[in-house]
């Protein structure tokens, strides 16, 4: 077994070393490190503790890189073998499931940990620059290392249960979202209970204790504590020697204290979470990959168990007059039955959430939530769902054609590329209609349950009349266009990459500042209207540019097939 694992591990690492993109990524990372160092040098004259600022930049950069890697790099460990139908060959070579899992995922984990480790000497410069301590640096890397272990295994789990890299990346996004939302939600619950006078009953004490524990599992909050000044100051806890002097900070007794400090709830929980993901992946691996066969791969995953081995299903009926709309509505968005089922599911989640929050509130201050709060929760969740759905459709709209190798057949239809693209977009947009209806119902629900209907209506229009809201819409539109464009260049990872680009790009893009300036300066109705108009024009212009790029890329890809 060990020979097989070693061979697979060696092959994966050699492949990784030979490929250009990972090396470019590493180069980019090193450049970012130098950039952070340069900024620290420039800021040294103006701000105190430049070392700490340098360390903060590096720590958060690492966090984002790990996040991005988790969603893209780790999620494809097994799916790439599935897509190439080579899992069977690995089995035939006598490599056991655990061997494949270790061989495929461990190489990536090692690559990521190496990337983290090689920075330590750079980061130690933070101590020289002043403001950061060795304990802070160690704590940050241990926290990030534990997070990598969690994310690598969450990605591995996704890649075991999903058939394709894209789906696995989307599922890992879901785990990541859950990872960050749960502590935030826990904080909300516990603070509600505490505001209402603290936990009094056994249940409320248990809820608060669990919430407090959950809050400590997030690497984001752990990292923000670590990079704050004053963290890890051991001077108060250092043991003293016989002379009453603190013992050397390199002595074994101090290292014992350090180990205890480093073994935080976040570190332990993240490692345990990672191991759990790995164990489940191992248990499910054989079941989900046993019937590997090219062509069947796309139809096989945990969420569609009924499809395994099925040769037929109930017919969908004839295609619509515009079959491109029909196809994308059914095969990208999921079709009416799935959309209805999904809406129902989300409403059930909303109601459960409302009941839970209301219960927590009742436990805390003895009163349940008002009915309008159900619709407020629904409105928030459905707006989020709308953005998520639109993002997923944007990434899949042309990816499905590339995966099925059908782009050339579509491009040969007697219609323009624009007609093709916009028809497909309409099919996907139809898939958003149910969520839009739910949003409308939630809004009507708020209106209906509100005592002051006029005021609620007025505030709705006030929100829509804010140019800053339209600035946000412009960003979302840019994001969706970017996702579609990147999906034509990358096999997977278009969504997280677009998110990173828009998130960071918007903060340093002059256009965003211009748009926000227009939005912010609009104090009178005329200014607001101008702000909205400028945003809409910018949105249209940017979209047109993206659409031209998409059309040209489609043509190029179609001719390559």
């Amino acid at each position, binding site marked *: 077994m060990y020979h097989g694992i070693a061979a697979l591990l060696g092959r994966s690492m050699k492949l990784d070393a030979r490929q250009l993109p990972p090396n470019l990524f590493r180069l980019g990372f090193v450049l970012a490190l130098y950039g952070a160092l340069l900024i620290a040098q420039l800021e040294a004259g103006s701000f105190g503790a430049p070392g700490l600022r340098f360390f903060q930049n590096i720590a958060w950069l690492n966090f984002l890189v790990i996040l991005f890697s988790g969603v893209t790099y780790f999620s494809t460990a097994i799916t790439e073998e599935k897509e190439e139908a080579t899992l069977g060959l690995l089995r035939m070579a006598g490599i056991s499931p655990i061997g494949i899992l270790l061989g495929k995922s461990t190489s990536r984990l090692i690559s990521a940990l190496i990337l983290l480790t090689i920075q330590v000497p750079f980061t130690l410069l933070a101590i020289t620059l002043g403001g950061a301590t060795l304990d802070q640096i160690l704590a940050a890397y241990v926290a990030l290392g534990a997070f990598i272990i969690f994310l690598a295994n969450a990605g591995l789990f996704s890649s075991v249960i999903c058939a394709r890299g894209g789906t696995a990346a989307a599922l890992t996004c879901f785990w990541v979202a859950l990872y960050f939302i749960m502590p935030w939600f826990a904080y909300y619950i516990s603070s509600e209970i505490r505001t209402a006078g603290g936990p009094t009953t056994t249940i409320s004490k248990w809820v608060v204790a669990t919430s407090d524990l959950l809050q400590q599992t997030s690497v984001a909050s752990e990292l923000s504590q670590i990079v704050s000044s004053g963290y890890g100051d051991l001077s108060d806890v250092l043991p003293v020697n016989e002379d009453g002097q603190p013992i050397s900070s390199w002595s074994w007794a101090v290292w014992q204290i350090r180990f205890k400090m480093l073994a935080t709830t976040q570190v332990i929980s993240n490692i345990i979470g990672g191991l759990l993901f790995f164990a489940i992946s191992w248990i499910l691996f054989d079941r989900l990959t046993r019937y590997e066969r090219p062509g069947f791969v796309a139809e096989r995953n945990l969420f569609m168990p009924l499809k395994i081995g099925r040769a037929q299903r109930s017919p969908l009926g004839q295609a*619509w007059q515009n079959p491109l709309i029909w196809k994308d509505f059914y095969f990208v968005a999921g079709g009416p039955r799935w959309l209805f089922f999904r809406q129902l599911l989300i409403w059930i989640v909303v109601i459960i959430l409302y009941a839970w929050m209301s219960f927590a509130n009742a436990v805390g201050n003895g009163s349940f939530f008002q009915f309008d709060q159900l619709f407020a929760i629904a409105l928030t969740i459905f707006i989020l769902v709308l953005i998520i759905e639109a993002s997923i459709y944007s990434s899949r709209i042309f990816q499905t054609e590339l995966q099925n190798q059908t782009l*050339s057949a579509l491009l040969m239809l007697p219609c323009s590329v624009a007609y093709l693209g916009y028809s497909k977009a309409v099919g996907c947009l139809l898939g958003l209609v149910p969520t839009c209806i739910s949003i409308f119902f939630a809004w009507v629900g708020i209106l209906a349950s509100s005592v002051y209907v006029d005021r609620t209506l007025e505030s709705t229009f006030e929100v829509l009349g804010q140019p800053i809201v339209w600035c946000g819409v412009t960003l979302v539109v840019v994001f969706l266009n970017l996702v579609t464009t990147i999906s034509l260049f990358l096999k997977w990872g278009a969504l997280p990459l677009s998110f990173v680009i828009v998130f960071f790009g918007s903060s340093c893009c002059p256009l965003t500042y211009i748009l926000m300036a227009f939005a912010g300066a609009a104090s009178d109705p005329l200014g607001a209207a101008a702000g909205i108009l400028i945003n809409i024009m910018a949105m249209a212009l940017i979209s047109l540019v993206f659409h031209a790029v998409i059309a040209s890329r489609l043509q190029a890809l179609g001719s390559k*097939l």
Partner: protein
Amino acid sequence: MNHMSDDETQAVPPDQVQEPTPLDNEAFEKAASSPAGAADDASDQIAWADPNHAISLHNVTHRYQGKKALDRVSFVVEKGALHGFVGPNGAGKTTSLKLVCTLLQPQAGRVRVFGEDVVDNIRKVRTMIGFMPDHFSTYRQMTVNEYLDFFAAAYGLPPVRRTEVIEQVLSLVDMNHRQNDLISGLSRGMQQRVGLARVLVNDPELLLLDEPASGLDPRARIELMDILRALRSMGKTIFISSHILSELAELCDAVTIIDRGEIRFSGRIGDLLTNPQNRHTLRFEFAPGSADMRESLAQIEGVVSADKSGEGAGYRVEFDPARLDANQLVVRVASLGVPLVSFSEDRRQLNEAFMDLTTAGVR
């Protein structure tokens, strides 16, 4: 095939299928064996925009990142013909096919389909052609019926017609019994049939097939060839790119051989399989134990050479058809007084011609 209605489905007898004209063959043989200037002279003799040419490529050049994929390529495919397109890997076959099916635009030269320029009349051309690529281009999550219905609708067929057309094309490819099956559950051969059915839903006059038999088992391959023959008998023009030379020789009326982006031969298969110097060969088998006949055979007027063939008493006799008829040769050989067991025409095989016309080495 024409699936407008049953009575409109007029089968064209194979003997009425238009063969490439002698003019074309002469022109292209000349072009293939001559420098560029001579090729231009040959090209001048062809009416490139003739709608009777299902495909015509005239001086087409195409480059990928500066590297020439096609270099002043010219050839025609006659309407109603089953025309083979062969060449080594990287010779320019797929590029030529993509140019014809409008997925690429020629960087120089003109490409026409039934006289229509593929750049100027792109939509019209697209309605006239059906292209089956060398990979499965199917939506695996659809059923066979949904897949065909989708493409039929995309070509603008009304719903009622679509049902009829799908039935017809599925019956042609013998897939009626699997129309409600998911494509993902079909075998390779069946997926290939579905792909062919998809190409036929818009009733195109010209079918462009890129390696349609690759990866198929012998039975599926034979059945596919039968389908292609049936389609040809329905009057379709079929331009088929393949590496299986024996099948092409059996199936096609004409062939174009391309190598390193240049056309080596384009014309009737029969012309390609005759000796390059326009000499014919007969193989004679005499009774075992006969004396050496080489000298006697070589002395017959019109015989160019006579060589032993195999280990028995077999001889290959090459003769000039202008001076000696094949029948006359047989009579004269029989009159030599040595018992003649059998004789047969010794034609070159397509693979021999292919090897002669193309250069060695992987591109």
